[in-house]
């Protein structure tokens, strides 16, 4: 009996020991400044500044000189450090269709710059909310929201949809960003959709100058608990830099996942508009709408 136990243990050990640490020689890493900012006309300009590191080191903070903002190449503001790499403008709210340039100086790495502008806001309306819009492959119900917007003709436009769910379990407000997916061809046409994402991003390639109705799905488990809640739908008009950055960021994260079941994807390099550095400095404007969920009366 014990003998059988040992044999069984040995077999189980063999079948489960599939991951191991490996050592590899890494080249010297050339550190560069990193700028992160997605700015909109709703708030004061805020930037996070850090530095790149060799993969085995996680200390990203960077000592910098003041971070300068230029408006049409004219210095317009100097951001103030608020700690942990954040730099915030005291009073400058970015304007739409205005070209901003950010300059970050570092004694070690020199100057890094990035420029972008905020596109015009794109209005939209929610035309339908379905509490039970379908069932996924694991038998879970999902919900759906349908929106409509008019795509202006002419220049290339880019959009992003994100949804925040507000609920009040136990008398305390709670906010959750929802993970979205859509079978709409305008979204799928972008060639990144295979999973669910924290936002949906797409261009007007197929709908330039047209009115478009778009449905997207998400999981919404709270309604089964009969808790009243709200959805905040953010419909963003984003710059080209924002679009390329987010699109590659989604694939970048997806292909970082090491999953035997899903296999491996080709690594995707991040998009950056920072000269002499990494990161993103990109603008967006957004329209919002709210869907209030009535108390569910089902099971």
């Amino acid at each position: 009996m014990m003998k059988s136990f040992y044999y069984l243990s040995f077999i189980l050990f063999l079948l489960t020991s599939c991951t191991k640490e490996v050592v590899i020689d890494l080249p010297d890493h050339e550190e560069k400044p990193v700028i992160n900012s997605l700015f909109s006309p709703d708030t004061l300009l805020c930037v996070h500044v850090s530095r790149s590191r060799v993969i085995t080191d996680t200390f990203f903070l960077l000592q910098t000189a003041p971070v300068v903002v230029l408006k049409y190449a004219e210095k317009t503001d100097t951001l103030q450090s608020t700690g942990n790499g954040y730099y915030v403008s005291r009073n400058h709210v970015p304007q739409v269709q205005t070209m901003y340039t950010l300059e970050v100086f570092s004694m070690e790495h020199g100057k890094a710059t990035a420029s972008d502008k905020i596109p015009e806001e794109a209005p939209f309306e929610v035309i339908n909310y379905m509490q039970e819009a379908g069932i996924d492959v694991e038998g879970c119900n999902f919900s759906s929201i349908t929106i409509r917007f008019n795509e202006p003709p002419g220049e290339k436009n880019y959009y992003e949809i994100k949804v925040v769910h507000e609920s009040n379990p136990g008398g305390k407000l709670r906010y959750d960003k929802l993970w979205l997916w859509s079978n709409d061809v305008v979204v799928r046409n972008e060639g990144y959709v295979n999973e669910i994402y924290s936002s949906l991003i797409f261009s007007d390639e197929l709908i330039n100058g047209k009115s478009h109705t778009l449905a997207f799905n998400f999981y919404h488990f709270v309604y089964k608990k009969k808790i009243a809640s709200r959805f905040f739908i953010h419909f963003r008009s984003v710059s080209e830099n924002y679009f390329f950055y987010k699109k590659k960021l989604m694939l970048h994260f997806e292909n970082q996942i090491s999953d035997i079941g899903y296999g491996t994807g080709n690594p995707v390099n991040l998009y950056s508009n920072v000269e002499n550095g990494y990161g993103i400095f990109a603008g967006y404007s957004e329209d919002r709408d709210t869907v209030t969920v009535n108390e569910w009366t089902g099971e």
Partner: protein
Amino acid sequence: MDRRIIFSVVFCLMLGKVAAQVTISGYVSDSATGERLQGVTVIDMNTRSGTISNAFGFFSLVTKPAANIIVRFSYVGYKTIKLTLPARDTMLNIALLPGVNLEEVQVSAEKPVEDRTEISTITIPVKEIKRLPALGGEPDIMKALQLLPGVQSGNEGSSGLYVRGGSPDQNLILLDDVPLYYINHLGGFVSTFNPDAISKVTLTKGGFPARYGSRLSSVLDIRMKDGNIKELHGAGTFGMIASKLALEGPIKKDTASYLISYRRFLYDIFTRPITKIVFEGASMGYHFYDMNAKFNYKLNENNRLFLSFYNGDDRAIVKINHKDTNQRAKVAIRWGNLLGALRWNHLFNPSLFSNTTFTYTRYRYQTAEYYKQTGTESEYTFTSSIYDATAKTDFEYYPARFLTIRFGGGATLHNFIPTSTTLKQDYTGAIPVDSSFNDDKNRAFEHNFYLENEINLNSRFRANIGARYSAYYVDDKWFHGIEPRLVVNYKFARNYSLKAAYSKMQQYVHLLTSSGAGMPADYWVPATAVLPPEKSVQYAFGLAHTSRNGMFEITIEPFHKTMSNLIAFEEGIAYLGGSGNWQYKVDGDGKGKSYGIEFFLQKKLGKSTGWIGYTLAKTTRQFDNQNDGKTYPYKYDRRHDISIVFKQKLKENIDFSATWVYGTGNAMTLATGHHLVIDDNSSSHYLPKTDFELYEGHIYSEENSYRMRAYHRLDLGFNFYKEKKWGERVWNISIYNLYNRQNPYLYYWHTKVTYKNGVRTEGTPKLYQQSLFPIIPSVSYSFKF
């Protein structure tokens, strides 16, 4: 003037040779099954001139007249026979008796390698494949081919074929002369070929004869069994991966026969009812199947018809039926092939044989989602497909003993639908959505003509000289190509020959493989004006030798191949998910280069048989818009690749086999640096905008500039045979990865986080290797009657 004189002299000399000759022709078949035998050596013992029977068992031996012509028919595994024939044209039907030298390994054709014109060509009989160790107890043709030099397997367990640095779409895979577009099941762990329905497999890696075209890197010619024309027989297997059954027999004895086989992955038969109980009305299942059928009908001595059919699919289905909530849903993903072929063999005269073929082949990948509830109905489908209809005819003409001429032509109508998406939504109170987006259905027309001359000038010099002309019409644009082909074999000493080959190839279809981490998907797309046909030029050389006792055979083959117009998704695109101009989401200027040397040593006779294959090679790719335009190693570039195959007959009723493989680790792109990246300003619009969502983004090395650890593995297999009253049964026991080598499948960085007394401590990122298959024993039971 001089040229005319020389031509006249040569013509007269040839005419003189042609005038004094007799033709011995006919068919060779297995006496027990009536199955026509390909590759039987037919030799005139007086002149030592010879020929080999073709894919339909036909031979035509043109020789000198003599008082008695002695002709020998030999084929490994069959009793050799000699016939004495009169000095006149003779038509024969030869039936060879099986059962001799069964323990001999049969990795090559029967003629000594140095006497065969071809280069870089290997034939493996299916019964040899069945003797090899098998993952999950399922013998696999593609995995057996991966043991040959110059052929890589790709990822662990995969049935992919990467031949001399080419990608899987560059293999022309012919099942009874019909191209198959997709050859994998179960994510690549099993190929679509059911060995019970297959008679012979021939792989050509270089020195392509002119009759083959449309792909750059290899030709895999797979022939289905014709079906036993004498009596009813059957075979079946219960395995851990799939079970199968094949039946064959005469419809009319010695005139018409059939073969039907079916193989299926069975686990869903159990998972569906179980999941229905566990998930309250939701049934889930995955399965694959292959169905082969073939009918052959001998109209008379000069005419024969063959009808072949194959259908194979992978299907993953989830069905939900909640009666209490009135909800119904179905999600189905399926992908696979359908093909059919009608072939007509016609013998015009003892020197002219023809085969006319009409084929249809289809590959499609489809995702479908359906949901219905009171007041709600939605449907989504995504399809990517390719349909081909082909008509072609091939002739073999034997005008003289030193010359065989093959010529023919064909035309193919391609129908491509790279992507097609349909979305319908009908919700109460909302505007219904009914939208369909399709890539334009690309119709393309391809036709070709070829001429091939197999010349045996004397016992030392042989050559196959030919050319292929192909033309392709798409988007109101013609593409033309002339593809010269040359193979030369010079036997410079007894049992030694030197070979050289040149092949230019052109390919009119591209394969885009999803580069994301999700569900793998393949999109077959046409060459277009934006993405022109892929091209390659390959040079191959060879030294071939057979030991005097015929025990050992060795080939050493250097090769050099360049490829152009290769395609890949542009960076940032992982799928063809919708519609519109897919061509503009693809980089189509890729270049590839592969060169190396292959060693292949076989032990062909005796109780212990097998081979050693070694490849030293380098393969690169270059795209203008990828890796900053720099050349980089191909993902499956392997500097060293070794395969050792050993087979031993332990007893009359027990076979043993072992395979050991070693390969340089796959090339990979590794993150060497990292930095913080912003995903959004905050998790909610109400939070202060200074609360960014920051994550770690990777900075990658140059593409494929790192190597995984080396891959090696030992597999063992035993076959236990027992005669029964009703036939024979075989127990197969296989052990995959005997010494449990943890071969790398993927590498990833991971930071361990620990909590102590409520304090979170993050370690430093470390590199981990994930392995796939540990030691896996398996067993299968087969029978035949």
